């Protein structure tokens, strides 16, 4: 019996290995599927296939055949699937309904220039617009009402505002704690502190949100004496609670992976523990600490429940004591009321896709920096 036998010798083993290999691709598959299916629901917006104009040029039901399927879909706000399954009669009655609906539009809206706008076009999504009834061009997110306004800038501002407050609070605390735990604390204290701080990540965000809403908001208001009890500041601090363990873990890891030889060298020269940590260890670990902040950012912009519970009024304001509505909050709060397949629904998915892209990029950047950092420490460069 030769020892050089291929997979035929052990077909079961060979099959099992192939199976293991295929299953291991699931993570890749999932990332692709997430991207694909979130983007799929958002695509019609990108291709200008959604139309929210209240007043449209009615298509007489008799002229159905003169229009392409795509036009009909946009006009009737239905999916290609629905259109394909629709019988001639249903289609016709739907067209009748549409015409009737157009006739039912009250006179005051009919003359409103806003009512003729398709608010899902890019310029209305991004640029300030002079809406009727407003003094100056404004960014407005107001997906309900006669004229639905989908300007996503207020949501970006809201997200950034809350995220930055959170990071402003969390980064110094978490990095400070990481320095203390990894460099200054006695080993026995470190063994206790590290898991305790990491325990913070075990608190569900809905519980952090609850705590911020019921306890923190009141306490913070009595300290800072601001007007609105629930605002971006409270949300940001609460968000910080959720981000602290993320930043702490990664930064602590980066700091501990700096070779002990450096520390010993500095201490032997008569540097104090703080001088060693600050002048030798931190500079060496800086890429890792930076990556921790970037990954913390990714976590913060994606956090939903905390911001949803603490503040959710969509106002365009940079003041930290005003309310703010983040992208995640918007998706969570409005998906239920959005008509499946409608423009609002699609724009919410578009927001999700943007969020996915943003966190994808920040994660990639963070991981890349950490990877390089570790390689450099191992002397591979």
């Amino acid at each position: 019996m030769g020892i050089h036998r291929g997979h035929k010798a052990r077909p079961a083993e060979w099959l099992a290995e192939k199976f293991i290999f295929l299953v291991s691709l699931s993570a890749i598959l999932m990332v692709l599927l997430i991207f694909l299916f979130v983007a799929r629901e958002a695509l019609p917006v990108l291709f200008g296939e959604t139309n929210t104009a209240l007043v449209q040029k009615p298509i007489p039901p008799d002229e159905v055949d003169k229009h392409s399927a795509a036009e009909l879909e946009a006009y009737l706000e239905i999916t290609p699937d629905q259109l394909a399954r629709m019988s001639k009669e249903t289609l016709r009655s739907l067209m009748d309904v549409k015409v009737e609906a157009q006739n039912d539009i009250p006179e005051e809206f009919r003359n409103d220039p806003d009512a003729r706008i398709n608010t899902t076009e890019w310029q209305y999504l991004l640029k300030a617009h002079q809406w009727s009834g407003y003094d100056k061009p404004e960014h407005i997110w107001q997906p309900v009402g006669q004229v639905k306004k989908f300007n996503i800038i207020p949501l970006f501002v809201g997200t950034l505002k809350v995220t930055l407050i959170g990071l402003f609070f969390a980064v110094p605390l978490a990095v400070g704690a990481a320095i203390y735990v990894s460099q200054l604390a006695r080993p026995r204290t470190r063994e206790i502190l590290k898991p305790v701080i990491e325990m913070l990540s075990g608190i569900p965000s809905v519980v952090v949100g609850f705590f911020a809403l019921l306890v923190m908001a009141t306490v913070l208001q009595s300290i800072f004496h601001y007007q609105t009890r629930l605002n971006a500041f409270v949300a940001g601090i609460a968000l910080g609670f959720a981000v602290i363990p993320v930043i702490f873990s990664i930064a602590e890891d980066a700091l501990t992976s700096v070779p002990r030889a450096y520390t010993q060298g500095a201490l032997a020269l008569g540097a104090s523990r703080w001088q060693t940590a600050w002048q030798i260890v931190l500079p060496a670990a800086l890429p890792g600490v930076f990556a921790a902040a970037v990954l913390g950012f990714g976590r913060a912009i994606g956090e939903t429940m905390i911001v949803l519970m603490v503040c959710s009024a969509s106002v365009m304001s940079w003041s930290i004591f005003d309310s703010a509505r983040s992208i995640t909050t918007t998706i969570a709060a409005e998906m239920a009321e959005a008509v499946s397949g409608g423009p609002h629904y699609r724009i919410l998915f578009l927001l999700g896709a943007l969020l996915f892209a943003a966190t994808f990029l920040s994660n990639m950047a963070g991981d890349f920096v950490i990877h390089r950092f570790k390689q450099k420490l191992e002397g591979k460069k």
Partner: protein
Amino acid sequence: MNTLTPSEYLPEKSADTTRFTRNFRAEKFDFWSFFFSGLTGAATWLIVAILATILLNIGINGWSAISWHFVSTIPKKDFFDANTTGVLPMIVGTSIRVIVMTIFVIPVGVITAIYLTEYAANTSLLTRIIRAAVNNLAGVPSIVFGLFGLGFFINFVGKNLDKILHNTDAVWGQPALVWASLTLAVMTLPVVIVATEESLKAIPAGLREASLALGATKLQTILRVVLPQALPGILTGGILAVSRAAGEVAPILFTGVAYYMASLPSHLSDQFMDLGYHVFVLSTQSPNIEQTRPILYATVLVLLILTFALNLVAVLIRSNIRKKMRSMH
């Protein structure tokens, strides 16, 4: 070698020639070291204090409000009434969705980890892509998982399933227990992979070699030698995944959670009530927050016990494994 004499090339000796007899007391107090050590220490203890405050606040307020009646009652439609309400369906719903999730995520996660540690070449492009994907999956916002569950599981898989099965009403093409669980399984996949990988790496290579040298095949070695050793790590991964998923609300918002259901879920296509979502509902939609406060605290306590106790166990097992690993090197 240098031709200079030592006194020429060496740094000046300080004027103080009695150096050898000077004592070793600090010349001056190092204020900045003291200050910054204190500052970072304060940051650390502030974080610990925040954690303690949250836990104590919930523990004390929750404990006084919780009762056997509360955890064993199916509430009526008006669950804001502190005297009659209960959280049994929420406990059941959360537990079931997590258990179903575990059934999906553990095998996939463990097998992926086995591939990564036992088969894959560490530097190959594919391995790096898999790792990047795992890392990325871990960083995807939970609300995006919710959108994914809606767009993929419900609108694509579910709707097509209904078509194939010729269901006239939507059975699978709507929010359901199974879709919520699957969504959570995708979300927690990295948790299981990372924990399993960590424990697989902690197993000494010698053990595998010993088994292979006895003529065992690679698969036999993995099944009989490696996996039993890695069991605590896999367990940790499972527990971490469960505790993470049990507290998540955003991914199930559109994929299966119900505001109210009169009965417990009995089928994978049923919707369910959920503890985390209930906390959200109680704290944001209560007609009278002062009256709801006790039951809110009690609900949060139940949720915390469910997620946090599990997390604590996982953290302990994990730090134990890490300690063992460090002592091995």
